[in-house]
C-alpha cells in the first residue's frame, strides 16, 4: 500500500521543510518513504512543492501527478492541485490565502485559516507549515502527533532546538482544529 502526499505553496512558506518533517515521521514509523522537491529556477515568492510517498515496499515513482492528500498554502497551488487529488482523497486549503470553493464532489475539502491561526495563536506566521501538518495528521490518520514531534527533533538543527516547543504547539493547534468549522 502506497500513500502519496503533496505540499505546495509560495517559496518561503516552509513547504519543503513540512515535507521533510512528514517524511522523517514515516521513517520513524519504519515505513519506506521518499521526499522529492520541485527544483528548478525557483525564487522566493514563486511556487514550490514537494511530494512525499509512504509505502510498505520500496517506493517506485517518487514524482506523482496524483496524490491521496494535498496541502495547499496559497491560491495558485489550490487552483492547480485541486485536480490532482485522488478520488476519495482530501485537500487541506489555507483559507487565509485561498478563496473557499469546491469544484469537485469526489474529494474531501478541509478549509482552515492556517496563516491567520498561526498569527493569532502562535504569534508567528512562519509556523503555518507545521500547523498544516497537524491538520493532516488528524484527517489522514496515517501518522500520529508524537511521531511528528520526534520528526521535528530530527529535522530542526542543533542551534535551533529552542524552536521545538513552539512547533509542537503548532502541530497540536492543527490537530485540534475543528474540521467542521469553515
Amino acid at each position: 500500500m502506497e500513500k502519496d502526499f503533496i505540499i505546495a505553496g509560495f517559496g518561503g512558506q516552509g513547504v519543503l521543510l513540512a515535507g521533510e518533517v512528514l517524511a522523517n515521521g514515516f521513517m520513524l514509523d519504519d515505513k519506506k518513504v521518499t521526499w522529492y522537491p520541485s527544483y528548478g529556477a525557483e525564487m522566493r515568492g514563486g511556487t514550490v512543492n514537494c511530494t512525499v510517498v509512504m509505502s510498505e515496499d520500496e517506493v517506485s515513482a517518487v514524482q506523482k501527478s496524483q496524490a491521496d492528500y494535498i496541502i495547499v498554502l496559497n491560491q495558485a497551488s489550490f487552483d492547480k492541485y485541486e485536480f490532482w487529488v485522488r478520488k476519495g482523497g482530501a485537500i487541506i486549503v489555507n483559507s487565509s490565502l485561498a478563496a473557499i470553493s469546491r469544484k469537485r464532489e469526489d474529494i474531501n475539502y478541509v478549509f482552515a485559516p492556517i496563516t491567520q491561526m498561526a498569527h493569532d495563536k502562535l504569534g508567528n506566521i512562519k509556523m503555518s507549515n507545521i500547523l498544516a501538518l497537524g491538520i493532516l495528521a488528524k484527517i489522514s490518520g496515517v501518522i500520529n502527533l508524537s511521531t511528528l514531534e520526534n520528526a521535528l527533533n530530527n529535522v530542526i538543527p542543533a542551534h535551533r532546538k529552542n524552536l521545538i516547543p513552539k512547533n509542537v504547539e503548532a502541530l497540536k493547534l492543527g490537530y485540534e482544529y475543528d474540521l467542521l468549522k469553515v
Partner: protein
Amino acid sequence: MVAECVENKKVLIKGNFAIAQAAINAGCECYFGYPITPQSEIGEFMSGKMQELGRAYVSAESELAAINMVLGACSTGVKAMSSSSSCAVALMQEALSYATADELPVVLVSVMRGGPGLGNIYPSQGDYFQSTKGGGNGDYKLIVLAPSTVQECADLTYKAFYLAQKYKNPTVLLADGLLGQMMEPVEFKPYPYPEIDNSSWALTGAKGRDGRIIRSYAPLADNQCEFLEKLYEKYRKIEENETEWEEIGTEDADIVLVSFGSTSRNVKTAAKLCRQKGLKVGVFRPITLFPFPNKRLNELADRVKKFITVEVNMGQMVNDVKLAVNGKAPVELIHKGVGAPPSPEDIMSQIEELI
C-alpha cells in the same frame, strides 16, 4: 538541511549528501569540484566536513582544473574525487582518458541532467554513452556504477572507491538529478572493503628508492601495443569479477524490462502491474554499466521472447542490450527524453502497445 550521519542509524537525506558522506567514510582525502546543479550539495557538504576533518577541499576555478587536481592527488596514492554533472563532466573527458592511461584510481560522481549542450537541470539518463563509451581519446573503459536508491548512492560510493583502487582505473558513480535531489532513509555502515596497498607505484617522494614517473606517453609503437593488451586484460578481469545486476521475476518471464538507475524504480512497479494483468514480465537492472552484464542477458535471451529497455534519454543502453542479446530476441525501447521517469502506468500501457 543535513541530518547528522551516524553509523548504523537511519537518516533521511538527499542522495547528494549520502554520496558525500559515503565518500568521507570511504576515506576520501581530497575533494576538488566546481558547482553545478543538480549536484552542488556534494561540494557544499564537502566544503564544511573535509575541513573539519583536516582533509583537503578545493573549490577549483573550473571543471577542467578540478579533475586534473584529482589526477594529481591520486598519483600520490591518496583517495581523491570530484563530482559534477553532464555538460561539466563533458569538460573532464580528456583527463579521464589520461587517468586510464596513467592507471590512476580517480573517483568521479556524475549526477546527470538534461542535455545536449547546457540542456536543463532536470533528471536525465542522457550520459549513459558519455560514461560508458567515453568522450576522451583512445581505447579505454571507465568502471561505471549506477545506483537506483539513496541507500545505493551511499553503498556504491564505497564500492567506487574500492574498485578504483583495486584496478587502478577511474570509476564513475552515475546518478541523476532525481537521485541527487530526493530524500530517502539511508543507513551508513562502516567502509566494508579492504584497503589496497599502493606503495609499489604511488609518488611519495624518492627518498631511499629510485624515482618513479607516471605518464601516458609511449614513443615506440610496440610499447603502446603491449600496454593496450595489458590494459584490456585488466578490463576482462573486471568483467569477470565485478559485473553486478539485479533480477526480479525473470525465471518465467516472456518479457524482460531492462533499465538502470532511478528509472528502474518505476519499471519494477510497471512489471508488477503487468503481472496483475497476467503478463509474464520480469525486470533486469544492470548495476555496473561497465562491466555490462552481457553474459547474463545473452543467457536469458535463450528463452525470453522480448526485451524492452526503459530509459530517460533517446535510447542509449538499448544498443548494449542489443549487442548482448545478439539477435536471439527482439529488443524494443520505451523512453522519455528528459525529466522524471515515465510513471509505472504509462510504462505498462506502452508495454501493452509493444506486444
